[in-house]
């Protein structure tokens, strides 16, 4: 059964919608900058921050209740609305529509601001509500009103990708005609300091796949896709952008925060995604890599890619030097980027790359490239060894 992608929506540090994001990618404009809205003492670490405060985000999302503004679901709502507009999906008619959303931070931005107040004085208790992940999903779903079923996934940095995978399975099972799936994640002091305590934040612009890479830049954003069955596409006369042809979720089963030496989890994810898609490694024209620019990720992802593709490495790049690592949103956001690349036959560069990792001796794209694309792979690997790979294909 085919899974059609009929709509995309995203927001990130390089643009408030898909067009702006694509424009930044084409013109090599990075969104990594000094933090303005996240108040931290560690201002030496630049991030892919969206330069809007709560009220500006709410205005942009068309949400007018000022009481319960939480950053993650607002980012999600903005991207979901764009995805639905892009798919021209405005009413549910008799089609069954589900929503699957991934996040890990959820309402932590508010929890960390008001924790003391929650414990010692309950005056701001309405902010309690959004701390859990399910609430981010329901906030978005209730403001859209099209969904008869919702699910929430949290597999750290692969949450967005895994939402798309279960979304595709829900359609293949025949239970739903349309599933809107992806992920959203705001910056929070909680995970910013968590990543800092692990010493994987870079004080410089991140350099994915570079031998002298010094860690990652965090980011925030959201990315959602509208997935549809053939029946729904025909019935709605929708204009599909591409297919979600292959996907796989695997587990490295090695360590909470590091990938195994040879990237077993990433290797299996790419291998199984190809298998499900009925594709050979040589069919892949471009890989939008996880490429966080941490020493561990890029080395092990590179090793896994070499195990899959051998000497015939496809064009690849990480777009995280543009957007920052948007953690749970990355699988959604980078899927949107992958779909835009596929549709426009455009390959974005990997910013800040100079020297290949000697052992791998592979180089990502450093100059924009235009070529006919048929199949694009997108990798997302998370803490806990939750590794996923998606393949988008032209129809």
């Amino acid at each position, binding site marked *: 059964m085919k899974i059609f992608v009929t709509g995309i929506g995203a927001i990130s540090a390089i643009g408030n919608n898909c067009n702006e994001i694509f424009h930044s990618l084409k013109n090599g404009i990075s969104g990594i900058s000094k933090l303005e809205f996240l108040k*931290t*003492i*560690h201002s030496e670490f630049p991030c892919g921050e969206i330069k809007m405060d709560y009220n500006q985000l709410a205005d942009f999302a068309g949400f007018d209740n000022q009481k319960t503004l939480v950053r993650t679901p607002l980012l999600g709502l903005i991207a979901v609305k764009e995805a639905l507009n892009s798919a021209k999906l405005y009413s549910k008619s008799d089609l069954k529509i589900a*929503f699957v959303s991934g996040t*890990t931070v959820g309402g932590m931005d508010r*929890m*960390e601001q008001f*924790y*003391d107040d*929650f*414990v010692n004085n*309950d005056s701001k*208790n309405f902010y*309690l509500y959004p701390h*859990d*992940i*399910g*609430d981010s*999903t329901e906030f978005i*779903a*209730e403001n859209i*009103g099209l*969904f*008869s*079923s*919702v*699910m*929430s*996934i*949290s*597999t*750290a940095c692969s949450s967005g990708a895994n939402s798309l995978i*279960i979304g595709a*399975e*829900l359609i*293949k*099972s025949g239970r739903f005609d349309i599933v809107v799936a992806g992920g959203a994640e705001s910056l929070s*002091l*909680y*995970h910013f*300091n*968590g990543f*800092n*305590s*692990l010493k994987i934040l870079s004080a410089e612009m991140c350099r994915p796949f570079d031998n002298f890479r010094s860690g990652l830049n965090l980011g925030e954003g959201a990315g959602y896709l509208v997935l549809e069955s053939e029946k729904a596409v025909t019935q709605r006369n929708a204009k599909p952008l591409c297919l979600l042809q292959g996907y796989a*979720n*695997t*587990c*490295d*089963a*090695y*360590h*909470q*925060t590091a990938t195994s030496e040879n990237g*077993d*989890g990433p290797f299996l994810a790419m291998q199984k995604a190809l298998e499900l898609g009925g594709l050979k490694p040589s069919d892949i024209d471009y890989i939008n890599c996880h490429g966080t620019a941490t020493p561990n990720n890029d080395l092990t992802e590179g090793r896994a890619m070499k195990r899959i593709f051998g000497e015939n490495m496809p064009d690849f790049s990480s777009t995280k030097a543009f957007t920052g690592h948007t953690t749970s949103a990355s699988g959604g956001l980078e899927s949107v980027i992958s779909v835009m690349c596929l549709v426009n036959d455009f390959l974005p560069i990997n910013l800040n790359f100079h020297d290949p990792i000697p052992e791998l001796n592979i180089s990502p794209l450093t100059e924009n490239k235009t070529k006919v694309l048929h199949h694009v792979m997108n990798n997302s690997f998370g*803490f*806990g*060894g*939750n590794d996923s790979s998606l393949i988008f294909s032209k129809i």
Partner: protein
Amino acid sequence: MSTVYLNSFKQISVQKPLSEDWINNPQNFENQKLVRTQDPDFKSLLPANVCRRNGNILKRAMIVSNFALKESGLESVEAVVVGSGLGCVENTELFLQELVYEGEEFMKPSYFMASTHNTISSTIGINLGCHGYNSTYCHKGVSFENALLDVFLQIQMNRIKSAFVGGFDEMSPTYFNILQNAGYLVGDSKGFAGEASAGGILSNMLTDNTLCKVAAVRLGFMLNDDELLDLLDVTLTDAGLQKSDISAVMTGINGKPSSDAIYHKNLELFGIQAPTLGYAHLFGESYSGSVYGFYASAVSLHQNKIPQVLFLDKEVENQSVQNPKNILIYHHFNNKDHSFIILQRC
């Protein structure tokens, strides 16, 4: 489509751990608001270094998954899927407290590393050596049902042959107070908040140890009465059943008036002539606490008898249902999320 069997299920809870002792010797927690887990002797069940390195919820997850796999008779599973409303909330709170009260300057990574929600499923993945599908669902009171649906579909569609599925949540006293103040959990009720650590093996294989068949799993969101009835009909159709085939309805009725009123209203709407069961008076309430309703229903089918302790109407003495065939499990969360599961005797 493959048939989905439940081959084992193990629990650690406020009742005696890793046993079905709650059937005949249920512990009573009346007048308590928060009851913590009665842990087994970790040291006798896990290596010393594993005990030292891991928080309680992870130790429980390892033990539950070890026992479940052993009892299932399978050597390995192809997937691990967990439902957890709040994830590793104790470590989350410890890291948060460090951030809020000590500042950003000298934060240590250990609490953070074990605070992401998927720490539980990945720990089970490492524990069982499972490199296959691994996922975590965090959706309030239907977190476990989200996880169950994923595995159910994947086995039906022959993506996988077997999986561990479970529900895990822990509750710290401070976090409990926060949720209480926000009107969550037991609030004004007669019930109590607990924690959850339970899970088992689903597969496409009927074995000597199989507890029951999982015949249907359905989720719904923001449904009106007609839509809720439609969802019930689809659930029954999935299992090839009619309302009259249902031996009992397991619910999340927990003594919280606002929530129970919705259960009573919806049960009347369903119009199923079968006794209403509950488990929250035994195991307490938590986001993934519904896992115990699933477990207690499966045990009832396997033992060919619904034990008296699960009946909610205490006025009627010596109730029990012999030879139950199909148990419908219904949950709602805040009347927004709804879930139906049908378990069937093999």
